[in-house]
């Protein structure tokens, strides 16, 4: 088939088997359908230019160009289907892969990404993002949480309390994402929950991106005096993005409960031996 599908009674996710990328998410309960392309890209870190000598570094995010480069134009994919879980394993490159997972009875998609060690032998510092592209008309707006509490409306090249002279078209529109970021067209909402604080933005209508890893070769001159560069082979990072598609009306109830479950996740304890019925006494 030209497409691959994983689905349960609530969600259907469709993949283009030609590219291996996610191409559509459907909420079967609410009869919502949204074309979504998700893939990984990287910004080439600035080492300073004519406008400013400021390099991208530990403190400063400053890409050299507005447009990020794709990690790959396709992903090698494998499909795993069992009664409890359906997974699409995507291999984008030797240093970037992802498992898209849908559990039985679950109302969200789980994207478990693994990025690194980021190669820098080409002498280019790289800041890697996961980007979701949709045809949603979002009017240059997106929403991020503030410290896991208040949701803030963010607008392209805009600050609510002063007239902004935007000098950094990418970094100037990045905001902290502590637990969630979302875009909406007023009818439906695409929410991505993170398992850690990350930077995120929406640089085009219907687009949403989160920075997942970075490795840089130049110090940004802000006091560390070392580039953000792990020694030896470099770090490999694994994390999860939980993706919810729902109507705007009930989106908040869904992402709020899911974020609670993510931040205060159940704790596991294992013990050797057979069954041991628990008695409260």
């Amino acid at each position, binding site marked *: 088939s030209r497409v*691959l599908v994983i689905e349960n009674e609530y969600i259907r996710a469709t993949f283009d*088997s030609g590219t*291996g990328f996610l191409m559509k998410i459907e909420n079967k309960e609410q009869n919502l359908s949204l074309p979504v392309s998700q893939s990984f890209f990287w910004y080439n870190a600035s080492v300073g230019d004519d406008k400013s000598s400021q390099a991208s570094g*530990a*403190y400063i995010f400053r890409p050299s160009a507005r447009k990020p480069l794709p990690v790959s*134009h*396709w992903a*090698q*994919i*494998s*499909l*795993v*289907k*069992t*009664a*409890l*879980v359906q*997974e699409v*394993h995507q*291999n984008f490159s030797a240093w970037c*892969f992802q*498992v898209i997972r849908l*559990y*039985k*009875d*679950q109302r969200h998609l789980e994207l478990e990404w*693994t990025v690194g060690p980021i190669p820098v032998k080409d002498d280019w510092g790289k800041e890697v993002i996961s980007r979701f592209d949709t045809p949603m008309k979002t009017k240059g707006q997106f929403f991020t949480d503030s410290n896991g509490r208040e949701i803030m409306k963010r607008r392209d090249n805009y600050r609510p309390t002063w007239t902004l002279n935007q000098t950094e078209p990418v970094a100037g529109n990045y905001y902290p994402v502590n637990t969630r970021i979302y875009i909406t067209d007023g009818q439906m909402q695409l929410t991505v929950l993170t398992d850690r604080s990350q930077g995120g933005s929406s640089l085009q209508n219907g687009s949403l991106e989160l920075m997942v890893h970075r490795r840089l070769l130049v110090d940004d001159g*802000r*006091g*560390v*005096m*070392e580039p*953000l560069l792990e*020694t030896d082979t470099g770090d490999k990072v*694994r994390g999860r993005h939980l993706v919810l598609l729902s109507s705007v009306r009930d989106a908040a109830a869904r992402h709020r409960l899911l974020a*609670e*479950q993510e931040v*205060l*996740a*159940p*704790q*596991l*304890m*294992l*013990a*050797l*031996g*057979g*069954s*041991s*019925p*628990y008695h409260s006494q």
Partner: protein
Amino acid sequence: LGDSAPLKEAMAVLQHHDAVSGTAKQNVVDDYAKQLAAAWGPCEVLMSNALAGLSHYKQNFSFCRELNISICPVSQKSERFRVTIYNPLGRKVDQMVRLPVSEGNFFVKDPNDKNVSSNVVIVPSSYSKTYQWELLFPASVPALGFSTYSVTKMSGRNEQVPSLLSRPRKPK
């Protein structure tokens, strides 16, 4: 001697944003890790003492620092083990539990000794060459409480090998 004060102090130092953001020199980052590691030991002893006190039974507890990278000697090497899941939320939670295991079939029973459906799934080959399988089962945990599930490995190889559809493509 158990003591949680060193971990409390190490965590206080790690509140500084340098500890997580990369805005520190490498030798400072190494020191953060050293402080945390040194503090962890006496806190584990404290936990063991507390658990022994609560259970009225002294035994050797071990603490796994590698479960976050899917390495767990207990679940990977034991024929039978119990999984206690604590839910810190004030509402019931249904959660899928994933544990690294060796290849095989497993029976999972819930706190009422009823069978729970489970699967053994293959992890991507790129994850690790040393572990390949994860046990998966749905757990239900009450508000601010815990549930204990028992897992027993059956003899024989895994018969639940998932359908694996590979679509290798040549790079452009």
